[in-house]
C-alpha cells in the first residue's frame, strides 16, 4: 500500500503534476505516514529520476522546472506536520538567491534557484531588484550557507562586490559563501571581489554549491 503511494508520489513529480503531488501528500498525512518518509521515499525519488534523465539528455528544462514545482507543492503540504513532529528534511544546505538591485533579469537566477532546489538545497529566492541589505538580513535570518547574487548588466554587476562586503561587515563571512553569476560575470571578477565561486550556467552552479557545502 505504502509502496504504491510512494510510487505515485514519484510519478507525480516526474509528470510535473502540482495538484496531484499535493493530493498525494494530503493522502499520506491522512494515512498517518511519516512526512519525512513521504518526501524521501516518494517525491525525492521522482526528483532524482528527472535529474538523472536531464543529465542524460533525455529530459529537458521544462521537465526539471515542473518537477521542482510539484516537489515544492508537496513539501508545502507536508511542512506543518513535519514541524509538529519536530522533524526536519535533511537538506544539502540553505541558499539565499536573488538578482541585485537595479537589475530585473530573472530567468538565469530562477533557473539556478530551481535546479538548486531540485538538487536538495533549501532555497530562498528573493526575486529581482534586491537591495544589498536584504541579502544580508535574509542570510542571517535563515542561517544561509550560500548567498547567490545574479547580475546581467555590467552596471549592476559592481554591486555584487557590495554584497560580499556587507556580509563581511555583518560578520557572516567566511561561514556564508557567496556565489556570483550573470552574463558579464567572469571567474576573474569573482576572484577580484572575493566571492567564493562563479559558474557560467545553472548546471555548473549546482556543482559549485555542492562543492562549497562539502556535499561532493
Amino acid at each position: 500500500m505504502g509502496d504504491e503511494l510512494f510510487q505515485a508520489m514519484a510519478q507525480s513529480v516526474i509528470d510535473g503534476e502540482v495538484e496531484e503531488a499535493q493530493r498525494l501528500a494530503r493522502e499520506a498525512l491522512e494515512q498517518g505516514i511519516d512526512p519525512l518518509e513521504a518526501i524521501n521515499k516518494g517525491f525525492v525519488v521522482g526528483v532524482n529520476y528527472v535529474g538523472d534523465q536531464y543529465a542524460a539528455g533525455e529530459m529537458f528544462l521544462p521537465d526539471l522546472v515542473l518537477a521542482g514545482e510539484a516537489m515544492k507543492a508537496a513539501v508545502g503540504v507536508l511542512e506543518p506536520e513535519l514541524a509538529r513532529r519536530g522533524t526536519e528534511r535533511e537538506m544539502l544546505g540553505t541558499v539565499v538567491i536573488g538578482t541585485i538591485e537595479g537589475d530585473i533579469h530573472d530567468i538565469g537566477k530562477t533557473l539556478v534557484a530551481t535546479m538548486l532546489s531540485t538538487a536538495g538545497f533549501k532555497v530562498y529566492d528573493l526575486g529581482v531588484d534586491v537591495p544589498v541589505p536584504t541579502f544580508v538580513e535574509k542570510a542571517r535570518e535563515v542561517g544561509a550557507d550560500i548567498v547567490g547574487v545574479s547580475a546581467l548588466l555590467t552596471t549592476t554587476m559592481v554591486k555584487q562586490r557590495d554584497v560580499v562586503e556587507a556580509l563581511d561587515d555583518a560578520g557572516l563571512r567566511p561561514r556564508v559563501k557567496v556565489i556570483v553569476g550573470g552574463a558579464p560575470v567572469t571567474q576573474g571578477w569573482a576572484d577580484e571581489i572575493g566571492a567564493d565561486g562563479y559558474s557560467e550556467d545553472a548546471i555548473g552552479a549546482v556543482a559549485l554549491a555542492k562543492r562549497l557545502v562539502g556535499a561532493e
Partner: protein
Amino acid sequence: MQPKIALLSEELIERVLEEAFQILMDPGVKVQSPKARRLLAEAGASVDDDSEVVRIPEDLARKALETVPREFWLYDRDGEPAVHYGGDDVHFDPGSSGVHILDPETLEHRPSTSPDLIRLVKVAEVLPQYDAQSTAVVCNEVPKEIGDLYRLYLVLLHSKKPIVTGAFSTQTTQVMFDMLAIFTGGREGLAEKPLAIFDVCPSPPLIWSDFGAENLIDLARAGVPAQIVSMPLAGAAAPVTLIGSVVQHAAECISGITIHQMARPGAPIVWGGAPAIFDMRQGTTPMGAIETAMIDAAYAQVGKHLGLPTHTYLGATDAKVIDYQAGLESGISALVGALAGINMISGAGMLDFLACQSAEKLVVDAEAIGMAKRLLQGVQVRTDTLALEFFADFAFRGDFLKQKITRRLFLDEQYLPSPVIDRGSIRIWHQSGRLDTFQRAKARVAELLAAYERPPMAPEEEKALRELVEHVARKAGMDQLPAVE
C-alpha cells in the same frame, strides 16, 4: 504554410519550355542507342541514324509528359511506404557514387572500399534526417563489372530504407532488378512497391549515350522508378547563363522522358539533375556555389509546372575537409533545395565536387537537414489564442518555463539538434574537451555506429540475395565475396 522560394515567373517558365521544345527540334538531341532511336521514330520523331540526331516534335514530347505519374512512393525493404515523390514534399539522401572517402584520422581522400560504404550506410540508417539511402561510394576493390550491383548488395544487407542507386551496364541493371525483387515477391511486386530508384544521366550537352537511353527503356519496362540526373555545366557544357542552362536541362529531361514513356507510358520518372556552374579560374564544377543551387531551384520550378516529381543534388561542398566552407556551402544549398520543395535532395556527406564521401560530414549535414525541415514546417498555430492564454495569471515574471504547455509544445516548436551542434555554455565546452565541429562529428559517428542494429532480413531472402550476387561475382572473377559483418 510551407515556405517556398520562386526564382522564375510563370511567364519565364513558359519561355523556358518554349525554347526547350524548339531545341528538341533544332538542333535536336543525339541519341546513341539504336533501340531508343527506333522507339522515337515509331512515335513520330524524325531520326537520322548516321548522325544519331533525333528531332522530337512538341506534340510528341507533350504527350510523353502527360503520361508521367504525378506522384509515386518508394517503399522500405519491409514494404512500408517511406518516400513520397510528388507535390512539394522534401526528402534527403546521402550523395551517391563518391570515389573517395575522407579518412577521419589522416584527412586523406583515399579510394573508398566496401567497409567505407557499410560505415556510411550504418550512419545514414540511424539518422532520421535521411529518408533514403544511396549507394554512396564505389567499392574500389571490387571488379568494375559488378561495381554497381555490389554496392546495392551491401546497402540491402545493412539497411531497410529506400535506396537511390544507379546501374553501370544493361546486364547488371537486370541483376539489380532481380536483387530488389527478392524483397518484393518478384518483378511485378517490384513495380508495385519499388524500394529503389535509379539515377540515369544524359551526357551534356543534349546527348543520350547508348547505355543512358537503354537504361531508361529497361527501367520503364520494369516499372522501376527512373531519376533523370541532367548535368548542364553552365559556361562549359551548357550556356553560361543560369536560365540558358535551365533550358538545356529541360530539353535533356524532356527528351529522356519521351524515350522513357515511349517504352512504357505511365512508368514513374523524376525531373532531376546535378547541374553546376563552371568555375572560370579553376576549371572545376562547384556544387557549393550559390548559382548551382539557383539553377536547381529554377529547373525544379519548371518540373513542378509540368506536374512532375523532382530531384536535385544539393547539400554538398567543394571543401576538402569538414570546415567552415563545408558547413556554409552544404547548409545554404540544402536550405535552397528545401525551400524549392524538391522531392529528393541528394548530396549530403559529399566533399570535393561529389568525389569524396564522409560519414563525419553526414552527421553534420543531418543537422542542416533537420533545420531545413523545421523551416519547411513553418510558423504554426498550436494554441487557441496565439499568446493570450500564456499570459493568464501573469505576474511580470519570466515564468513561462513553469507552464505545462511549454513542456508539451517545445519539442514541436523547436528542432532538437544532436550534440554535433554546440549549444552548451563555455564551461561545458571546456569540460567536454574543447571540441570543434569535426571532432564532435567523429564522436557522434562512433555513437551512431554503436547504436546501429542491422535490420532483420528473412534468412531465405538473405540466402537468395547472396547466391545471386555470388553467381555474378564469380563470372566477374571474384571467387569469393568479402566477408561483411
